């Protein structure tokens, strides 16, 4: 089911959370709303769900204006950052909740509910936890249960609010890959909110970059990274260095967009090595150049020629090689 957001604005007292947002999400797409905290991404998600009412604008699901519909009638699955599981219910009862709350006429029999719940628990690979209570589960398990619970009522749209935000780094990585695979299987139109650009790049079909209540750019992960529409997008989507050229001119480049050499080369600048950090496949070197207080970070493969025997305080020659032409910024 497609989602259209039309001219949506929202204020919280004097704070402008969303300013005239327009967004089209295609059926079956997995879209990330990416931005720093306070950019309005969660508010937008909650407005799509019907948990928040916009001051102006409309939400359209598959051609039907649902702006006036209550959250109960929108048929969306919502996954919360802190799981929001019912703690006095077992995992099984949590997942069964939506089905049991249906009006008598539509409510399946307990037998059908049990089959459905076990099917969902198998899908999230946690069927063996059916009789446990939420507090007996790890964070990652809880979030998968929350997802199974949301999917039980067969929503037309799945909305996830920072779904991995409360998890530790390793679980987070596992779970987002799992989510991407799951989305490939069930192809449910999904929107998820995140402030982690890596997460958005890894999981989403398209990324909506937001800042201060407006959309800065919409595009595929490669697109927003390679062709950022603004300085904000450029900075937000990855680490960046700024090299001043004098006369208020500067260039921006990413840490890996650099050429390093131990010996002097054409167009290369002299810099002092401040720090060397091996990070696995790559090594990060912090450089200080003479006319600039801002440090430069360069990342090269760990067996790069320039690294052999390099120690702090030595000199290196570097040259930015930005792939994005951004000399005018």
């Amino acid at each position: 089911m497609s989602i259209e957001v039309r001219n949506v604005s929202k204020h919280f007292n004097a704070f402008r959370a969303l300013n005239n947002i327009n967004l089209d999400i295609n059926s079956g797409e997995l879209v990330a709303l990416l931005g720093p905290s306070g950019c309005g991404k969660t508010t937008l998600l909650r407005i799509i769900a019907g948990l928040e009412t916009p001051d102006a604008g409309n939400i359209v699901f598959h051609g039907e204006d649902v702006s006036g519909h209550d959250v109960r009638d929108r048929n969306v699955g919502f996954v919360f950052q802190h799981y929001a599981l019912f703690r006095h219910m077992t995992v099984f009862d949590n997942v069964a909740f939506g089905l049991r709350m249906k009006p008598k006429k539509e409510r399946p029999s307990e037998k059908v509910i049990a089959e459905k719940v076990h099917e969902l628990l198998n899908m999230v690979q946690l069927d063996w936890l059916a009789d446990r209570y939420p507090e007996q589960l790890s964070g990652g398990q809880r979030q998968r249960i929350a997802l199974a619970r949301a999917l039980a009522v067969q929503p037309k749209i799945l909305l996830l609010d920072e779904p991995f935000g409360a998890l530790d780094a390793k679980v987070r990585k596992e779970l987002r890959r799992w989510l991407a695979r799951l989305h490939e299987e069930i192809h449910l139109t999904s929107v998820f909110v995140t402030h982690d650009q890596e997460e958005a790049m890894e999981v989403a079909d398209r990324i909506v970059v937001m800042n201060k209540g407006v959309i800065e750019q919409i595009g595929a992960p490669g697109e927003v990274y390679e062709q950022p529409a603004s300085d904000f997008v450029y900075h937000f989507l990855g680490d960046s260095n700024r090299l001043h050229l004098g006369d208020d001119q500067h260039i921006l480049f990413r840490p890996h967009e650099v050429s390093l050499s131990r010996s002097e080369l054409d167009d290369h600048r002299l810099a002092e090595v401040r720090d060397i950090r091996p990070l696995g496949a790559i090594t990060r070197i912090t450089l200080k150049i003479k006319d600039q207080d801002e440090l430069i970070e360069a990342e090269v493969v760990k067996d790069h020629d320039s690294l052999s025997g390099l120690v702090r305080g030595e000199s290196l020659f570097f040259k930015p090689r930005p792939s994005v032409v951004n000399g005018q910024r």
Partner: protein
Amino acid sequence: MSRRISPVIPGFGLTLGYTLVYLSLLVLIPLGALFLKTTDLTWAQFIQVISAPRVLAALKLSFSTAFFAALINGVIGTLLAWVLVRYTFPGRKIIDAMIDLPFALPTAVAGIALTALYAPKGLIGSLAADIGLKIAYTPLGITLALTFVTLPFVVRTVQPVLADIPREVEEAAACLGAKPLQVARHVLLPALLPAWLTGFALAFARGVGEYGSVIFIAGNMPMKTEILPLLIMVKLDQYDYTGATAIGVLMLVVSFILLLAINLLQRRIETP
């Protein structure tokens, strides 16, 4: 290799010792003396005292009015806690502070004030009389006084638990299609029930023993509006100390059984 983490408060022996000494001085010894005093009576005499019609009528009245007062506060108190936790409005802090006033006020003052208001000639009592309802000098008046005195219990036990239930849980239920009543019935109430039962039990226990506020509004007619604590006072006035202690023991035993039952019920609910 495992190492014991030393507890914050030192010494199990010491703390248990303190606990037992305090409990003994304040609760066990006085209550024990009460039981001991009743042994002046033979078993047959004891049964005779506590099965007197006047005692049984007062017993029924005391426990039923305390029960209904606790039940009313169970409903109203939960609503009050809900409003105080979930909404911000001007004067919320003041109302929150007012909840505890029934504890601070001398109960006799409360009793007299309520009687003045709800007596047939009183401000509210006269209105009630117009529709044929008599409040003061009836079990209804007693329930009213007990409701006033035990108001804080349910509010104060439910309030923190309610504050602890994140809004998201209600939103999650709504997203799953649950209607407001279903959310209350299936999500909020089960989470509140253990705390609610504690509040109910406290209010009930307090109501059973309440004396000061009730005697003014009750009218104290034997067999009709006479509560057990008053009957004990009557016996004392007649220098019938063993009779008074017998009734005291009866109250204690019945209260203890009821509170124990509530506690067991709570255990069953709380154990996942």
